[in-house]
């Protein structure tokens, strides 16, 4: 017990020191990390049903219908949720029973093309695939064979640098209820861990220095 108290006391000295010695971005990062673990959004769609999803292993309930992306509004793990083509996280959501599609605008080159490969329907998030569409202008052509796969299993070593978001969010728990209007809410254990570990300068979500 005594040892535990000592550790906390040490931490109490180390943390303020760290916070002061680094730039003000440390405080900003902790503030932003505090907003990351939560999700709540409202949207319109031809949907009906209830769905639960928890830590990527339980995915139960049934939502039937279509949820056009353009109608969703809210807060999604640190990012305001509204339809915009350039949203890099829009297509990184995990497996969904009902696919969200972007009929409005028909922007297949930007939206549906990548969202279509974001997951395998009905598979829990822990076993799903993550989009590995290159976002930078790099030579990304396989040297041998004709395989042109744009997805990787999210826990594959090759996908680690690219799919941090999908990995951190593999432990999300979400509830969704809908009857024409659907409401989603959820919390992310991965982001919560990132918030706590952030005080020790450990950035598991790779989202520090956002400002």
């Amino acid at each position, binding site marked *: 017990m005594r040892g535990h108290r000592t550790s906390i006391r040490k931490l109490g000295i180390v943390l303020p020191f760290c916070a002061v010695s680094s730039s003000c971005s440390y405080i900003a990062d902790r503030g932003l990390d505090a907003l990351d673990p939560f999700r709540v959004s409202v949207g319109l769609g031809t949907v009906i049903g209830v769905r639960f999803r928890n830590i990527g292993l339980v995915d139960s309930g049934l939502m039937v219908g279509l949820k056009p992306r353009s109608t969703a509004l809210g807060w999604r793990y640190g990012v305001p949720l509204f339809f915009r083509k350039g949203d890099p996280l829009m297509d990184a959501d995990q497996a969904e029973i009902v696919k969200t599609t972007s009929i409005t605008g028909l922007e297949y080159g930007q939206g549906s*093309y990548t969202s279509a490969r974001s997951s395998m*329907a009905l598979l829990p998030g822990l076993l799903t695939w993550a989009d590995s569409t290159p*976002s930078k*202008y790099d030579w990304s*052509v396989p040297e041998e064979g004709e395989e042109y796969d744009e997805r990787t299993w999210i826990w594959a070593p090759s996908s680690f640098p690219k799919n941090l978001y999908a990995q951190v969010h593999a432990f999300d728990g979400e509830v969704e209820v809908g009857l024409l209007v659907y409401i989603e809410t959820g919390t992310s254990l991965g982001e919560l861990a990132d918030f706590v570990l952030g005080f020790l300068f450990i950035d598991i979500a790779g989202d520090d220095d956002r400002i």
Partner: protein
Amino acid sequence: MRAFAHVPCLLVLLVGGCVKPDRTVRFTPAWEPFDPGAENWLRTRKALLVSDTQVHNLYSMALPERDLTTESMAATAIRPPQLDLFSGDVLEWIIRNAEKDADVVLHMGDAVDLACEGELEQFLGVMERGRKPWFLCPGNHDFYYFGSYDAQDLELWDLACHGSGARLPKDRFIRLYVAALLGEEEAGCAALGSALGLTDRAESSAMALRMPASFEWAAPPGTAGFLKGIAWEIDEAHPWRSYIIQSVDMTLPGTDGASVRVLLLDSCQYAERPELIPNAWRSYPVHLNCGLTAEMLPNQLRKVRSWLEAGGPSCNYTLMFHHPFRDLAPRARSSLGWLWREIGVGLVVTGHTHAGFYEHHDLGGEFDELELNLGSTTDWPMEWRTLAGYANVAEKRMYIRAERSTLVETLRNEEGYFEREWEIPIGAPDDYREYKQGEAGHILLVDFYLAHHLVPYWLPQPHIRPGDTAKRTEEKVKDALLLTYRRLLENFPTDASAAAPVWPSGTKDDGAVLGRIAAALVQDAGIEAKVSLLAELGALERSRHTLDKRTGLPGDDARLRYKLSQAAWASRFEAEGGRTLRIEDQVIRVDWEKAERRRLESAAH
């Protein structure tokens, strides 16, 4: 003094990356005096760039996509009949008259519209009459049903190609295109024919059958002509995975400048069968709509890279392909962007949009990269460009001149076009937009929505057929085509003293032909009878020589001027906004009768 304490902080912020200066742009517009004819200027060959000619099968049956609902979303679903009828004449006139001094024609794709062999034949006829070396990078309309997808519903594709030969899938297109290239002696394709072992002058379709499925050829050093390399791979089981690329030499013979090459790529190569609307239920593999998303597969990209690297630093490259760069699927865009930046490709030229623009791309390199997108010769603004590079080693200056022309601006400077009495009056049954007066078939959207979003991909897709509204619209189009032929015969009667043309059955003079047209229009003849008469009228039009009704003199020049004028009017009125005035409309016609009536009414009051 304390008041200025924040200045160093601001400086640090500015320099430290909070404010980034603008990137240097490699290509900048030039307004300084430049005379390419002056001494010491090296010039490349001059290329005529055209795109999206969309030669359309006039004899097609009604199609679900040629419906006023689709037309309201994509204005090119149905074009005014005059435009479909005369778009080939426009292209031929551009090549033979407007840009006589161009050395080579480079087509950015979408030569045809519905992907039928008859359309391709018609296009090849135009290019042959143009009598210039020409090359084409394939576009989505050249071999995918209506430019959108590889229809598994072959009955639908057959309806589109009715009266115009067989369907034209991609493997067949590549073979026919290469066979057509072999006929171009000036283009330097004779050596290619020798390499293929196809030196006899057989029919294109017969030659196409003997074409190998996979082939790569590089012109031996010293070979004259434009074609320096060609490679294709044909996958007959999955035609959409086939591709063709070409290397065209633009270096002017006799100049000792560095070589200038154009690589024509294929942006319509897909891993999976293209679909009209990609199914929302499908996770992997992904099917794309080829009108919306472009794709290049690894085998093509690897070949392009090897060609670019083989050229070395002394070779200047321009890439050309059909879709704009931004429409490329992510992986192909990433890889091609890398090539563009790392190999130092000078310029990328694309088509597909029918609009035309310049676009800068920040690909992460030292400079921005520049894309020139080309508008259509058929759809407004009916544009084309000539492209030539100029270099002065002594002055260390280099220019690329991409001069833009439009049909209307070019014709306005010449006499004998746009005669008032030639313009179709508003409200006439063959008014340029008369077909738009029909009803919209809203049910079509629901069909597509259900078929592609609510039906899981593993269930068979329902077959979609043209509804009554689409059928009525198509009949209106056919009626307008018949009326257009009638106007041609009335304004430009057949010259009886010239060689006898191919008369439609049961006719031997213009009067009898006009009688058949009138009968087809008055009676409820049905679309089949109208289509069959249209085919006969097409043959007559191609074979006859005419008189100018106004002067009574023989000659076909006035008739060509009439056709070009009709195409321009139709294109203008088809463009978004229809008869609404635009910023560039400089001369505005005033309705004299209305103005006079208003004057009289106000005087009476």
